[in-house]
């Protein structure tokens, strides 16, 4: 697309004699100066703040800097290899965090994708008021998790009966009292309740992705299906839906990696020290406040690995697709 810079002679090249001889090195170097000047501040920043810090963090995770004395430099730290990782993975508390993260990911992923997909499907064909539906479905994206956490904390309050609020009170009111439950206070499944506000907040985003996908299906394809006498359902099932698989993959990866990082919602609905909603992303904060820096660094590295497993193939795929364009 934009190969102009490479294939056409630049200002420096214009003065060079015509011919096939390689341009003098000095001139070639000068062409690199301006772009480097523009981009190098950011390159340095990203190199230091992303990759440099990741490296330092990994190094910390391999030491025994797990006490106030070692962290503040009063006592020396020593290299302990993967001992922190081994201890963490054997710790029932951290296993609970990992299990919570898995439950949360499944509920959030399935919920957000299903709801977002249905919204997009309902809005695919022209309908009056589409703009309003779209804007309302999307608006929670513009609100912070902390602010929405305030209202969801009320909605998901575990009190029942006379002291109930939120959904429990609503169930009582409409005669569905048996549906009342302890929501996020349940030690095993409580984390799933935190996925509800997350679905509420991000289903609109998934809808926008899918809607773009639906609109990207060429009209000729649908028309061809109609000519063949396909019913509206079959048209979707065999013509439209298969075209959406790249969108589905994007949505899976983006929502999936977000679910590994959930932090704000848990702190605002529950608390960073709450056992039933404990996850690795919050454990980092807990370890840091108790001066267990090596453990905090190790948990951070585990999270990074999980995210990288999802994101790197995605980025590589995207870069390849760009090249082919």
């Amino acid at each position: 697309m934009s190969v102009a810079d490479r294939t056409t002679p630049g200002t420096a090249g214009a003065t060079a004699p015509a011919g096939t001889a390689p341009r003098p090195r000095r001139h070639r170097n000068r062409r690199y100066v301006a772009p480097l000047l523009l981009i190098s501040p950011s390159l340095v920043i990203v190199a230091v703040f992303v990759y440099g810090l990741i490296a330092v963090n990994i190094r910390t995770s391999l030491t025994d800097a797990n006490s106030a004395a070692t962290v503040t430099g009063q006592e020396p730290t020593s290299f302990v290899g993967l001992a922190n990782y081994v201890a963490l993975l054997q710790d029932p508390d951290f296993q609970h965090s990992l299990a919570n993260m898995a439950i949360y990911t499944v509920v959030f992923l399935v919920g957000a994708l299903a709801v977002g997909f249905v919204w997009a499907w309902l809005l695919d064909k022209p309908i009056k008021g589409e703009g309003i539906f779209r804007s309302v479905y999307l608006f929670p994206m513009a609100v912070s998790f902390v602010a929405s956490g305030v209202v969801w904390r009320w909605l998901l309050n575990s009190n029942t009966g006379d002291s109930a609020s939120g959904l429990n009170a609503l169930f009582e009111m409409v005669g569905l009292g048996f549906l009342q439950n302890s929501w996020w206070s349940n030690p095993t499944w409580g984390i799933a309740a935190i996925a509800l506000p997350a679905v509420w907040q991000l289903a609109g985003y998934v809808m926008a992705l899918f809607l773009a996908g639906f609109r990207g299906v060429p009209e000729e394809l649908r028309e061809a299906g109609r000519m063949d006498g396909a019913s509206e359902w079959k048209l979707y099932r065999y013509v439209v839906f298969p075209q959406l698989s790249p969108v589905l993959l994007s949505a899976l990866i983006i929502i999936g990696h977000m679910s590994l990082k959930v932090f704000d919602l848990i702190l605002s609905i529950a608390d960073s020290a709450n056992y039933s909603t404990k996850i690795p992303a919050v454990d980092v904060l807990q370890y840091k406040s108790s001066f267990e820096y090596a453990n905090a660094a190790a948990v951070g590295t585990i999270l990074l690995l999980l995210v990288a497993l999802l994101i790197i193939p995605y980025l590589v795929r995207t870069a390849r697709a760009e090249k082919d364009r």
Partner: protein
Amino acid sequence: MSSTTTTVAAPKPDERLRLAPRPRERKFSRGRTLRYVLLLVFLLFVLTPVYVLLVTSFKGAGDATADSAWALPSTWTLENWSAAWEALAPAIGRTFLMVIPAAIISSVLGSMNGFVLSRWRFPYANLVFTLILFGMFIPYQAVVIPLAQLLTVTLQVPSGIPSLIILHVVYGIPITTLIFRNYYESVPGELIEAARVDGAGMLRTFASVILPISVPGFVVVLIWQFTSAWNDFLFAVFFASSQNGPVTLALNNFANGALLQNYGQSMAGALLASAPTLVVYIVLGKYFIGGMMSGSVKG
């Protein structure tokens, strides 16, 4: 490849969501009625928390029983709002002081990077771009321990707003670079070529040709950065206190810090804390969606 792989064109951010001309449906079909019913049910689901926020924020202390939980206030009062405003006003002011410089600086950096990466195919350009993009997805928990050391101890940056401005600029670079790169890919090559023929170098071309046509790109990026920095909580928790931090931190402290939960006040506070981003969403929604769609790298 199929047309879904078009890069995000920032000039018309919601272009990909535009209605395609379709054959008209019959006016009254059962399918259409069903669709409306479902859409309205979902609309209610999405708006339920808004109803709760608004109603509760106007309730007095007497309305806190289970029976009246979902009812309208028996007497409407503004007490919660004034208490929340008193508690959060300083933090709201600080958040503006944080968000505005952070959004501007990271947009300028993003536009410089985006221009270079879209026009200059140096060796490994794609790899460099991908390495920058990866910074957008990392869990910040994976850098927070050495980051605290670097910012607070080595560089001596004061905790609170100064630290947070730096962090939002630094970790905003990937997304702003991405949006601007996609934006500049859509600028016709002839425009740049014309400037080059006139003898303008890359810097001159950037300043006199590219920047003037970048306004729509800047709108998208500024709005995106404004919203995400305003709503950030993670960095605030690690690099500020409720005394010197942004409104998310103050709100969390205000709503959850007290021993006895006062939902009326918390909900008024949540609405106050969300007002700026909601106004931006309502007034400039399509640009917000443009930024959001670029976050997916490509649809």
